[in-house]
């Protein structure tokens, strides 16, 4: 088998998103070149113009919204051995999920007020609501260190499982003063870690971009908010910003 044949063929596909997560990859610099020793990138709209349907790993960026996107995604699923949901829009619906709070007409009026043209707004969904996802790389944008770690692990056949614990775990190791103690509302206690508490470490609150914990402590979390003078309803907007898809799904369960 020639060296070329051994290379894993990787393809990137973008759906409803800003393509910022794909751009993150270009910031990898040398690490990106290292990855290329083992992989061949066959589809990557942000960087190359060639296209191919022959690939092993498909990175799906963006939320799935329209019927034509569903068909396109299903074809990718058939072609790929592994599907990686890449970035918040793909893993949890992300900001696109906000659209779920409105009817088609309301959404159109908010985004394009007064404009008369046919617009298919679609219904935003994370990738796993449409096809089976093998691996999840959360974040808005994705964390490059995690992307490289995951990719290496997948290439080695180990696969990758993101952390299941809260951002607080990483935040405390950085010796940050808790933002709740400073009178701010932070999504850290209910949000999946793996970002190395980036936002709280730089003076911002956590926005919950990596998704709500799989198993949050219901009473504990409610008590926590109450301790600082909030209710879940008070901070509904904080939950909704990235996690509307999840919140809606939980409501319908």
């Amino acid at each position, binding site marked *: 088998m020639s060296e070329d044949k051994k290379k894993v063929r990787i393809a990137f596909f973008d759906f409803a998103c800003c393509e910022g997560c794909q751009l993150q990859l270009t910031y990898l610099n040398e690490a990106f070149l*290292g990855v290329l020793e*083992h992989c061949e990138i066959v589809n990557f709209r942000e960087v190359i113009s060639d296209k191919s349907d022959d690939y092993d790993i498909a990175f799906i960026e963006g939320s799935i919204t329209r019927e034509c996107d569903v068909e396109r995604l299903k074809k990718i699923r058939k072609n790929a051995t592994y599907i990686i949901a890449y970035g918040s829009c793909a893993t949890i619906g992300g900001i696109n999920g906000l659209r779920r709070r409105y009817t088609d007409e309301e959404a159109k009026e908010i985004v394009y007020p007064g404009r008369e043209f046919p617009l298919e707004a679609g219904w935003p969904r994370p990738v796993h609501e449409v096809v089976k996802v093998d691996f999840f790389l959360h974040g808005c944008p994705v964390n490059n260190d995690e992307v490289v770690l995951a990719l*290496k692990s997948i290439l080695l056949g180990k696969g990758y499982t993101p952390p*299941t614990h809260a951002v*607080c*775990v990483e935040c*405390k190791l950085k010796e940050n003063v808790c933002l709740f103690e400073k009178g701010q509302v932070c999504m850290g206690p209910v949000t999946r870690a793996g970002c190395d508490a980036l936002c709280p470490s730089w003076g911002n609150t956590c926005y919950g971009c990596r998704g709500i914990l799989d198993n949050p402590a219901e009473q*504990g979390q409610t*008590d926590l908010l109450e301790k600082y003078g909030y209710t879940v309803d008070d901070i509904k907007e904080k939950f909704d910003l990235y996690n509307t898809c999840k919140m809606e799904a939980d409501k319908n369960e």
Partner: protein
Amino acid sequence: MRYVYLEKSDLDKMIQHLKKEHRVVAPVAKENLFVFADVENAEEITLEYLPTILPPKKYFFPPKQVLGEFTMGETKMSSTTVEVEPTVIFAAHTCDIDGMECLHTVFRNDPVDPYYKKIEKEIAVIGYECMFPCDECATCVTMDTHVPKAGYDAMMTDAGDKFIIHINSKKGDALISNNPIFKEVESGTAKEEIKKLRAAKLKKFDVKLKASYSELPGIFADSYDSDVWEGVGKRCVSCGNCTAVCPTCYCFDMYDEVKLDISGGERKRVWDSCQLEEFAEVAGNENFREERSSRQRHRYYRKFDYPVKKYNKFFCTGCGRCTRACMAEISLVETVNDITKENKNV
């Protein structure tokens, strides 16, 4: 060993003296809290401080540490690549010194941890005695860690316009010497002075736990099935703050991180926490401590019961960090008092 005086105005000279051959880390203010950090001069240091966010264990046992390297296809790992420069931990509280003693007990005992041992050899500890209790969370009086006893190379006690420094080891002897700022004082005189200061100090320190030092093991022996754990578990959000900030929590995870060209990689160890759901998860989808109540109980037993049986030592230093850092207001004082009350009522 011996005692010296240091004029308070010479504190920076002492720091500069230490810095000649050592990295000096000391408590510095971080917003309204404190952290141990590298310092350049005495001005950066806050001597009167609430226990730091993370305890000084982070220097002995870093949150993320590369242990060695390996090459793919070979079964042998390199000898340790841990590197450390001679470091002085300056102004550690007695509770934290007790925490270091706990870690030493664990990592120096057979099987000896070579990485820890290598670092520990390079660290000198200069303590700073608390003359005032810090807050409602600390239980140092019951845990008997509020007065300097052992585990330090030198200990500083505030005596008005000067510090009395007790030199307690060869390391301390080498550090606190060869400088006219250190004025030798006769042991008897220094001891007498410290005795007076301590008598005045002890009057200010309250006992917060309803159980005494000697009652605690018995209370824990009888409280495994207490309902208290259920209540604590309901409040816990598994943020892992309590274990990260604990000076005696030493659980870690290990993983191999391969290089990008996949020719080899590094073995790393990172702090882990028994409060996280995946901590006690094993193959076959089994989890030995699936419930938060059992995870919290486990934490308390790792402080007040198991180490007493294994090492004849409490692994709670009374520093109060777990209570201060808890997102869910789980208080060690309250929990231990609750099981004590249950126990004494029976």
